């Protein structure tokens, strides 16, 4: 079975000599939920632009479901649905028309497109607004509209560039459920996001881009296993001693009732046992930092 996406030595140099991508190799298996992480300017949007034919590549190759983009462009285009980062619809068009037109560009007749638009607008809770101009929608609604538009031609691969930007928590959760549902039905999903929690929650595999190069590609599980260090906030109902006793792990008093501990190889239960022996009873434990965030910062050298 060919990969959903195969990128070989992809390079993009803009006219102003900025090299956005440099010899990038990347592969995404069919049915995967794949995260593409990277800071601003890492090259994520450039890569997506090239995959979706919005940008010209300088060199290298892209193939989608085994089809070479260079020779079978139209078939490749049919395979991909894109939800871009920036709003890119006509704000003066009714939202139902936006969806029907998009389907029309893929050869789906108006009657069929209308039925599909109804289904999707109901699923993303915008059916009541179908006759409204797109400009009247809130930021979160506009994102959902772009998601529905990307699905109008039933693509095999869905590419989401920062899908949750500007979307409130409730809608974000419902969007995640929808995306999981699509992935369970067999759709390959590639996601770029700044919400690392989102990538950790949704994705099975991950690549990290930095300065136009893939610096890490593996499964989410394997990648997270690399982060042995855990930073936790421990809270006690009783006042904590001041100063705190010397312990075998790093500990910092935050206030009268809470402290931050950094555990390297020690398990949480062992740490709690050590603290108990010192007469410190812990009632609540919470994570101080997202593990993926820790790893991301380490890999991209933004933090020691």
């Amino acid at each position: 079975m060919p990969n959903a996406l195969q990128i070989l030595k992809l390079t993009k140099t803009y006219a102003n000599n900025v090299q956005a991508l440099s010899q990038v190799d990347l592969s995404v298996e069919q049915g995967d939920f794949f995260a593409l992480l990277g800071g601003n300017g890492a090259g994520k949007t450039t890569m997506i632009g090239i995959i979706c034919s919005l940008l010209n590549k300088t060199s290298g190759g892209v193939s989608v479901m085994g089809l070479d983009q260079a020779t079978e462009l139209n078939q490749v285009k049919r395979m991909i649905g894109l939800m871009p980062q920036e709003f890119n619809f006509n704000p003066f068009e009714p939202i139902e028309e936006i969806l029907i037109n998009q389907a029309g560009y893929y050869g789906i007749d108006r009657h069929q497109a209308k039925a599909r638009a109804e289904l999707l607008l109901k699923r993303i809770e915008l059916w009541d607004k179908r006759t409204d101009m797109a400009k009247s929608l809130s930021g979160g609604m506009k994102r959902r509209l772009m998601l529905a538009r990307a699905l109008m031609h039933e693509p095999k691969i869905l590419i989401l560039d920062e899908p949750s930007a500007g979307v409130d928590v409730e809608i974000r959760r419902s969007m995640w459920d929808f995306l999981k549902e699509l992935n369970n039905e067999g759709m390959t999903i590639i996601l770029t996001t700044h919400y690392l929690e989102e990538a950790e929650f949704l994705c099975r595999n991950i690549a990290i881009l930095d300065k136009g190069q893939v610096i890490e590609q593996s499964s989410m599980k394997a990648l997270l296993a690399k982060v042995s260090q855990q930073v936790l906030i421990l809270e006690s109902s009783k006042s904590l001693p001041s100063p705190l006793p010397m312990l075998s792990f790093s500990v910092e008093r935050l206030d009268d009732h809470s402290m931050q501990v950094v555990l390297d190889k020690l398990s949480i239960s062992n740490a709690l046992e050590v603290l108990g022996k010192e007469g410190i009873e812990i009632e609540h434990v919470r994570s101080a930092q997202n593990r993926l965030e820790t790893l991301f910062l380490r890999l991209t050298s933004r933090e020691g």
Partner: protein
Amino acid sequence: MWIAYKTIVIKEILRFSRIWVQTIFPPIITTSLYLLIFGGLMGERIGPMQGVDYLHFIIPGIILMTVIQNAYANTVSSFFLAKFNHSIEELLISPVSYWIILLGYVSGGVARGFSVGLGVFIAVSFFVDLSIHSIGIVLITFLLTAVLFSLAGFINAVFAQSFDDISIVPTFILMPMTYLGGMFYSIEILPEFWQMLSKFNPIYYMVDSFRMGFLGSSTTDFVTSMMVLTSMIILLAIVAFYLLKRGVNIKT
């Protein structure tokens, strides 16, 4: 591909129809004023031209002027706005061929030219007893003119970087060419040098042929006019297609 083409055309027609107060209505008012002032009030003093009274003489030119302006305005504003709000990406990521995109936008321009031209014709019919000498010549001249200026508007939109850029060509090039193309006068009344110069203006051939369709008289050969128009359409279509395919100001 037929569905994609139909989709673009419907989208374009709905776009200018939704804003009919800006697109359809003003040309009808302007044209009625032209006819009232130049045809009705001043026409009798000017006297007959090319064998007909002045009011009947200027009507074809005025209808064609609205067709030219509106066909151009439709493609230039629609395609520029699609670039400006990035909705052009909807088409670029889809498997629609560049020819279909171009044909769709040009058809939208032709549709607006036709709507406004027909609107003006109907409005004029209330004031003047109009007769058409040859409906075939009227329609073919209308079609070629609308296609030509839709293509020109499309090329303008490709190069335009700001809203100013889409008004420069209509104001400084299109309007003078239209006014100097024999819309209000027959080039026979010009000195020989200016007559010769007018023949380099493609709008002259359009106005002359269109007038021939209405009045049955012209100052140039109809076949020559059609050849000039067709050659220009082929030239502009090739340029527009090349620009679109290369992604000039659309893709980086």
